[in-house]
């Protein structure tokens, strides 16, 4: 294991800002993994920390491919995490909306540029991502349809689903999009949680990434179950169930749950009187893929995304 600082910067009042990278093996740049980019992506960082621990151990035992290189960057944004902010604390900008970055530009553009320089040119790239809406997922690999998306390779994770979608204008500044455009086969892995490291999705995600490494010959002699035969789906195929009123959300169904048409999957409760304002019903038979996980619902909030069977 080789540890290095790929970017550092003085702060007006705080300790220096540093991005650390951990390298395993050497030779052909094969896999780069990026953990927390936002200050609340603690699970994402935890997963990377566990991968670093496991890879260090495997490398010492000679079980990491000698001719290829794995790079792990557990956090791009320790400053925001230390002060409990999701985005860059001074100006509220999101590093994951700054790619490919600009080394003469604003602070977060410079951070993005230095990260991108370090992770450019790898055959595969994995980003531990979080969704812009609060919720739980069935763990899956997500990729944008740029024309370069490596859908077949994504099955190597053995996660239940590989989810693809058309990029929107604001996606063009995200890491996944730019990685793909610059010829890295990029995957965003959604574990399903952001803040709870104990969650079972942490273990599933760590296994999935190790499985990907094993299936690509990057590590050997590791015991991992073979995982799922991933289903590929387009995000547009998911059925969105919205809240038709505001109130306290009482969730009944969770990711992985099977539902039948017209089954009650959540209730919106009157915030003062406790009565049921609205029964949220499944419009189809299927499996819950995404479920909102905050106890309050706004009118029109997407509460569930269901895989229609």
């Amino acid at each position, binding site marked *: 294991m080789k540890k290095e600082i790929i970017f550092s910067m003085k702060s*007006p009042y705080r300790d220096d800002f540093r991005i650390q990278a951990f390298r395993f093996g050497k030779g052909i740049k094969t896999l780069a993994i990026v953990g927390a980019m936002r200050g609340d992506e603690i699970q994402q960082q935890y997963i990377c920390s566990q991968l670093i621990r496991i890879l260090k151990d495997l490398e010492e035992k000679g079980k990491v491919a000698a001719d290829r290189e794995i790079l792990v960057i557990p956090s791009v944004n320790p400053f925001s995490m230390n002060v409990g902010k999701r985005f860059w604390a*001074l100006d509220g900008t999101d590093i994951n909306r700054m790619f490919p970055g600009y080394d*003469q530009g*604003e602070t977060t553009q*410079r951070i993005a540029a230095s990260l991108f320089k370090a992770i450019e040119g790898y055959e595969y790239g994995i980003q531990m991502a979080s969704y812009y*809406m609060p919720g739980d997922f069935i763990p899956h690999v997500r990729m944008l349809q740029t024309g370069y998306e490596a859908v077949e390779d994504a099955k190597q994770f053995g996660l239940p689903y590989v989810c693809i979608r058309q990029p929107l204008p604001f996606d063009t500044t995200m890491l996944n999009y730019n990685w793909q455009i610059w010829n890295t086969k990029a995957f965003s892995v959604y574990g399903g949680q952001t803040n709870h490291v104990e969650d079972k999705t942490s273990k599933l995600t760590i296994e999935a990434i190790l499985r990907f490494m094993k299936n690509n010959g990057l590590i050997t002699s590791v015991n991992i179950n073979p995982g799922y035969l991933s289903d590929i789906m387009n995000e547009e195929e998911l059925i969105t169930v919205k809240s038709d009123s505001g*109130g306290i959300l009482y969730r009944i169904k969770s990711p992985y749950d099977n539902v039948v048409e017209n089954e009650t999957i959540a209730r919106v409760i009157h915030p003062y009187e406790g009565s049921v304002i609205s029964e949220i019903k499944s419009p189809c038979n299927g499996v819950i893929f995404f479920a909102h996980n905050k106890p309050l619902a706004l009118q029109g*909030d*997407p509460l569930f995304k269901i895989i229609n069977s």
Partner: protein
Amino acid sequence: MIKTVVSSALPIDEKLRIKKNILTNGKGKKRICIVTGTHGDELEGQYVCFELINKIKANMEKLDGTVEIYPSLNPLGMDSITRGVPNFDLDMNRIFPGNPEGSMAEAAAFAICEDLKGADMVIDIHSSNIFLREIPQIRINVDEAEHLVPYARMLNIDFIWVHESATVLQATLAHSLNRCSTPTIVVEMGVGMRINHSMGNELVRGILNLMKNMGIWEGEISPAVISEPVISNGDNVIFLNADKSGIFLTETRNNTIVEKDELIGKIVDPLSGDILQTIKASERGLLFTIRAYPVVYEGSLIARIYKL
């Protein structure tokens, strides 16, 4: 007449309402819309809405057509000093034309777009952010320049910045409306969280002048002289960014011509007393942006100069 454009239930005994004021008179069919308050920390547009409504109401008989004023596209942000939409990750000006099936913010963006479509002119007023002080200026995507610059020149502002098109900006309100043939002009002026009356008065006069040219307003424009803006061409905007982190101090006034090598300001260390960096104009030009918020990191934007 006040009309609610969007109404959506919040969890606890409250509705989010996005409202507009419709002023209409005469037989004229033209409609101009003034929108602002997309970013909850930008307040310059509030003064413009207030003044414009009163100027028109005082001479209602001079109005021939419809003026619609939307002071706050992001009421929750305005009310909580939040730039974005509270509880939502994305900048509201990056989600247009919106999505009726999306989250509350995306559905609101969709309804706003639908409501504005078909207007003869939309003016979208922004006031930078808390970090930068901007001279009154209009920003136009190069693809729209030919069509929009003639209108922009009527708005009594100091500078028109014709900039390159960027994919990410396709999700702004202005781009979304321009794409569906609703001419939309973005004004940037002042600084976040503050109101500058004289800038606001100049823009109100500019809006009335534009309305007059469009045949919506028959009142006097006083004073009648409208300022002739500097119009940027090509790639002549220079960005000066901080090389050091510290406290930025300046005595330079925005909206002045700076000479090459003229001192713009310095970045200092309040602990050691050292000057970490002196920032000088790299070219002669119009200083149209200057840092307002003193705390800077490496990379923080300090100034923008339009090279003359």
